[in-house]
């Protein structure tokens, strides 16, 4: 006689994922956690589109004469790679996904201050994204993501206006997200959650939001001026019409350099959380780390002229911008030193999120220090518009921001989904990403220093071996990104159930809210009675890791 056992089914407690089903419950949701997931899936799609352009570029550069594409097509590839990755992946990545999901949870609120505006910002992002993809489908654009005038306003015969509209609309999404965060952090903190008890993730998002609200309108106006000149020959940037092309660069970089910090500051916030949690130790110098975020946000608006050192900007302005650019290194270094000091004598565990944090600290340091090379006027003259610059900003944006994003996604995956991911695969993927990244971009520092210019479809034959190495690294990096997509998708459905706080982490989102959280985050209003990262007082932390 066969006895069949039936696995007892335990009814899941109601949470934000199982409370309602159907497409309307997602597309009309005002729940910050569901909107965060809408962003997660959409930015992943744009990451893959932007990545596909990078694959095309790296394939083409395996041969000095260009393996696959004409120079005109290559121009469109790097332009669309930049536009999609910056405006539709990097800028919304951590704020719109992790920030959206976590800020109300971290400060003890039921939702963001303006839930409907939050949904509106996702729709604006999607409308912008669809227009950008339509621009690609109808032939693309070849100006570079920087849209420099007068090429963009007068000479380019590609879809400049359509792409500019895409960026313009997506910009409003970014402004609304920043506005929502600022009001939420000011007005919706739980009782006892004073400013100096806020998690550093929240501080870094506050600083990011300031940049989004103050900077993005300027690029929006710049795009309108670009459109006026292209459509109506208004004479703002084109010297032939009485304009000044350097004015475009000033206005563009007034936003776009701070935008670099929109991309990296949230990543720094993630790293602060990871380093303290996996060192099981309170953060070293909380106040310094918190205020360094604000200092970076303020200083980020004073350095844009270092993009104009060789473009005809006054040499005296260049000197001032050079000095100010050096000053940004101070708050950035404060963060790196404080993370390192936090780890010192900590009880470090090498879980996947921490591996990404290690990767971030090393790669961001290289990216940041090469930024000092570029802030030095004399060196910048030598390496302007070479692969040195490309390597530098990929070390900060990809080595920094994408590492932090992946670390954050892994860290909060149990909270978001209520499931655990396979740790072995995750550690392996983190290693593959680190190796692939360095193989891709370190050779580009050398190529740039030797004089290989960026944005060309062809190059001198002596640069081939380093270019092939870079392309080989890119294929490893691509695999490194695909592996997490596969196991995270698997784990979402099949992974073992996660407890409320699998890492023994401090913070309201871990200690006061189940995994996954209910729609309004907390069963009862949390009251905060201790400082952030009070790991010394964490029950069980010493037994588990001591």
């Amino acid at each position, binding site marked *: 006689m066969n006895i069949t056992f039936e696995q007892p089914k335990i009814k899941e407690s109601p949470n934000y994922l199982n409370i309602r089903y159907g497409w309307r419950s997602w597309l009309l949701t005002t729940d910050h956690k569901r909107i965060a997931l809408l962003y997660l899936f959409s930015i992943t799609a744009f990451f893959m589109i932007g990545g596909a352009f990078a694959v095309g570029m790296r394939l083409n550069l395996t041969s000095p004469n260009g393996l696959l594409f004409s120079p005109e097509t290559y121009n469109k590839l790097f332009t669309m790679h930049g536009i999609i990755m910056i405006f539709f992946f990097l800028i919304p990545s951590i704020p719109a996904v992790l920030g959206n999901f976590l800020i109300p949870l971290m400060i003890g609120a039921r939702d963001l201050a303006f839930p409907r505006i939050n949904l509106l910002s996702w729709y604006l992002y999607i409308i912008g994204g669809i227009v950008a993809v339509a621009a690609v489908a109808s032939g693309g654009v070849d100006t570079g993501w920087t849209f420099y005038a007068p090429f963009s306003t007068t000479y380019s015969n590609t879809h400049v206006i359509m792409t500019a509209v895409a960026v313009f609309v997506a910009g409003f999404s970014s402004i609304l997200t920043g506005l929502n965060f600022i009001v939420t952090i000011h007005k919706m903190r739980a009782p006892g959650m004073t400013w100096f008890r806020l998690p550093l993730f929240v501080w870094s998002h506050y600083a990011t939001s300031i940049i989004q609200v*103050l900077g993005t309108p300027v690029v929006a106006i710049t795009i309108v001026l670009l459109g006026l000149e292209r459509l109506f020959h208004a004479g703002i940037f084109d010297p032939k019409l009485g304009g000044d092309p350097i004015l475009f660069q000033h206005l563009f970089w007034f936003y776009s350099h701070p935008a670099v910090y929109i991309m990296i500051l949230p990543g720094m916030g993630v790293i602060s959380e990871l380093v303290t949690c996996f060192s099981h130790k309170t953060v070293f110098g909380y106040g310094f780390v918190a205020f360094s975020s604000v200092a970076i946000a303020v200083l980020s608006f004073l350095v844009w002229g270092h993009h104009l050192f060789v473009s005809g900007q*006054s040499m005296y*302005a260049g000197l*001032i911008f050079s000095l100010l650019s050096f000053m940004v290194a101070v708050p950035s270094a404060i963060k790196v030193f404080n993370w390192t000091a936090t780890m010192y004598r900590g009880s470090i565990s090498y879980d996947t999120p921490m591996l990404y944090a290690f990767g971030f600290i090393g790669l961001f340091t290289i990216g940041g220090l090469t930024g000092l090379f570029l802030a030095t006027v004399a060196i910048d003259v030598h390496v302007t518009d070479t692969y040195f610059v490309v390597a530098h900003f990929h070390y900060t944006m990809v080595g920094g921001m994408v590492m932090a994003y992946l670390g954050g996604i892994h860290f909060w995956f149990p909270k978001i989904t209520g499931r655990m991911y396979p740790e072995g695969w995750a550690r392996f993927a983190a290693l593959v990403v680190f190796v692939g990244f360095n193989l891709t971009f370190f050779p580009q520092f050398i190529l740039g220093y030797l004089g290989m210019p960026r944005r060309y479809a062809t190059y001198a034959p002596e640069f081939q071996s380093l270019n092939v190495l870079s392309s080989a690294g890119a294929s490893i990096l691509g695999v490194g990104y695909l592996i997490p997509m596969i196991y995270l998708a698997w784990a979402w459905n099949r992974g073992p159930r996660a407890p409320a706080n699998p890492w023994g982490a401090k913070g309201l989102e871990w200690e006061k809210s189940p995994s996954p959280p209910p729609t309004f985050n907390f069963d009862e209003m949390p009251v905060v009675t201790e400082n952030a990262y009070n790991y010394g007082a964490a029950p069980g932390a010493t037994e588990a890791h001591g």
Partner: protein
Amino acid sequence: MTHTIVPAKVYVGVWAVLIALTFTTVAVSKLELGEYNFIAAMTIAVAKATLVVMFFMHLKQSSSMVRLFVVAGLFWLAIMFVFVLSDYLSRGWQPIGQWW
């Protein structure tokens, strides 16, 4: 949160002043004042913007925190102008001769 109710006559009064200032702008532009034409036009424009922000956008009744954010926005605008002008105004300067 409390909202002060502003009587309609205040809005009408501000609107009337804005219209009057618009006519003043046109009138001043007809005068030959040299570079003072520009200064006069900008002064009137700033006065009009201030009225709009204070009354129509309710800054007069807002908390000091909201006022701080408005001042921050204007300060950031000033940063943009000052640094862009630091380029434009110093472009014609000649390099200092060898001094050692």
